[in-house]
């Protein structure tokens, strides 16, 4: 394979890397007021990257850069979703930062760079690539969390995220070093071969794997490694939180799947229980801790912890349908989350954003369209049929039951019932409570469009075309087996 052939598989990453650098230089020359134009250009760069992924698929998959970088149906599926999500995240930021000193052209570029890191994570096929992808992504995210540098809460969020992220990197690196020590290789394919022959007796390998799982659980914010999530989500600027809740989670989840499915498929018996317990803990934390929240961003943080728990259920199954159910679940989750955050960003009164749940009281009387959209999204987040969220949960539960994890599915249904309470409580506030002062009407077309599109996607588009999504996810998952 010549160099050009090799690079042709990495076109999306090259577009992102070169695009972000070119925009950085352009931004510097255009000066302080270029944020708007650079944002639009960043969305264009993401669109080009999506086009490369969609129209130049690597048939049958390819592994380049000395076995470190893997392109297959799985990575293409995840990358498509990630790039589109990032595009929406940039679009949603405009109104929030408008007229603000912090609306700087580096903001969309940092999102591009973090998406570049996520791309590397999704395609990582060895331990070094895994670590470097995660670091590229996380470093950009730490900066994004504290981009509102004059706000105490934002800087605190960034610092907390940084310190705990560094800790999780330590865990992961330690695990990776143990795995390397006990297999003699960093490549997932080689590790899989050696794990197969030495099997469960290789205690060191298993301990290394547990450290690695801990680090990755940190990145997807699964309990008991979720402590940072509520504080960071609350403190970071709301558009950044929307991005945090959507894209990095999916990227880390994809990496999680790839590590366990390609490097340790034969050690399933060893890690299945670990993943199942993490899933249960996350679902429970998500269900019970969210009840007492009054801040809607904190509520969304706990909700995201719970949703990661459901998705991990498909991973615990350890089968191809399990993986495809995660892809379906996370895609639907991202659509719902982006929509919900677009609604939260519209909770704007004179003097800025409000974040209290009580501010939504009687929303139907003051702002019917917003109330309708938010109601649809909350129903879907709660997993109530016939919304798309229900189908996501359905596939995950079926995958878990098929893999013999009936108890896990039962606990999942119970947690789902509990979590429905706090979603529906908000719906109750909106429809049947005394109205709070109205929100500003002038919120800009980007937010309205994002919220509307995601509501229509959740019901009815994704419900009607669930078969298409299912087939795409199935093809993507098949690439790993």
């Amino acid at each position, binding site marked *: 394979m010549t160099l050009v052939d090799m690079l042709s598989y990495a076109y999306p990453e090259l577009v992102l890397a070169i695009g972000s650098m070119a925009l950085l230089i352009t931004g510097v020359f255009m000066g302080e007021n270029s944020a708007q134009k650079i944002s639009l250009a960043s969305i264009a760069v993401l669109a080009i990257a999506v086009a490369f992924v969609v129209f130049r698929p690597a048939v049958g998959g390819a592994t380049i850069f*000395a076995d470190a970088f893997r392109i297959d149906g799985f990575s293409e599926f995840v990358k498509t979703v990630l790039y589109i999500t990032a595009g929406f995240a940039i679009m949603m930021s405009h109104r929030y930062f408008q007229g603000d000193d912090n609306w700087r052209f580096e903001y969309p570029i940092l999102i591009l760079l973090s998406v570049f890191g996520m791309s590397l994570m999704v395609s990582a096929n060895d331990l070094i690539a895994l670590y470097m992808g995660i*670091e*590229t992504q996380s470093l950009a995210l730490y900066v994004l969390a504290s981009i509102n540098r004059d706000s105490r809460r934002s800087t605190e969020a960034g610092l907390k995220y940084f310190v705990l992220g560094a800790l999780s990197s330590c865990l992961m690196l330690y695990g990776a070093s143990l795995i390397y020590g006990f297999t003699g*290789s960093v490549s997932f394919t080689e590790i899989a071969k050696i794990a197969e022959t030495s099997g469960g007796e290789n205690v060191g390998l298993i301990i290394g794997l547990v450290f690695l799982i801990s680090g990755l659980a940190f990145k997807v914010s699964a309990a008991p490694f979720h402590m940072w999530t509520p504080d960071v989500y609350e403190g970071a600027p709301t558009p950044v939180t929307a991005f945090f809740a959507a894209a990095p989670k999916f990227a880390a989840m994809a990496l999680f799947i790839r590590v366990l499915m390609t490097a340790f498929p034969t050690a399933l018996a060893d890690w299945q229980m670990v993943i199942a317990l993490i899933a249960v803990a996350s679902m429970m934390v998500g269900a019970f801790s969210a009840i007492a929240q009054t801040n809607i961003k904190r509520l969304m943080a706990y909700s995201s912890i719970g949703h990661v728990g459901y998705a991990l259920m498909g991973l615990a199954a350890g089968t191809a349908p399990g993986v495809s159910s995660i892809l379906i679940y996370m895609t639907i989750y991202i659509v719902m989350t982006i929509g919900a955050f677009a609604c939260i960003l519209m909770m704007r009164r004179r003097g800025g954003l409000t974040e209290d749940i009580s501010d939504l009281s009687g929303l139907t009387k003051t702002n019917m369209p917003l109330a309708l959209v938010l109601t649809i999204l909350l129903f879907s987040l709660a997993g109530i049929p016939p919304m798309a969220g229900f189908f996501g949960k359905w596939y995950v539960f079926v995958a878990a039951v098929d893999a013999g994890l009936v108890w896990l599915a039962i606990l999942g249904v119970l947690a789902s019932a509990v979590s429905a309470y706090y979603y529906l409580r908000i719906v109750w506030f909106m429809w049947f409570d005394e109205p709070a002062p109205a929100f500003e009407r002038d919120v800009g077309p980007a937010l309205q469009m994002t919220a509307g599109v995601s509501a229509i996607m959740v019901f009815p588009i994704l419900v009607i075309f669930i078969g298409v999504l299912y087939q795409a996810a199935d093809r993507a998952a098949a690439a790993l087996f």
Partner: protein
Amino acid sequence: MVATIAFYVFALSAIAAGLMVVASKNPVHSVLFLITAFISAAGLFVLMGAEYLAMLLVVVYVGAVAVLFLFVVMMLDVDFVEMKQGFLQYLPIGGALAALVVIELILVVSVWAFPSDAELARAHPSPTAAQTVSDPNGPTNIEALGLILYTDYVHFFQIAGMVLLVAMIGAIILTFRTREGIKKQDPAAQVARKREEGVELKDIPSGQGLT
């Protein structure tokens, strides 16, 4: 024999220094112990035949990073005594957890067996110290590094560059402010200045002085 003694000396001093980094009360002492740990690690690298890495460790970590740490520790006004207030409070839990992990790791090390086929899995077997010394015609350390760094590991090398770029952008975003009212040098204006703008000739009558 000498190598064995040297190994134990370096290893022991690395561990002892590492312990003192955490244990010492004065943060400046901590940094100094960190430097000791780095130098010991460099010694261990030399014993493994990786003299280039050893030099790198001394130049980069001791020469730059540790000195930077020293600057930061001395410049920041952090009350380390106050920071360590909660230390005793969490010691029982932390100690118990640490003991647990240590027991686990001892269990791991006791079963440490290099898998028989792992040697084959290594794409790039690193030459041992004995081999490098006995084969003077073999690639030197830097050559060996360069051979894989720009070929097989080019992916990681490039990502490392991107990580540094992100770190640089981040540092600039979070700290750089355009300050008002500071005097800046403008070389173009300096050069474009003419003699007439800067010098004023006055005809002063003798004996009267300047007013």
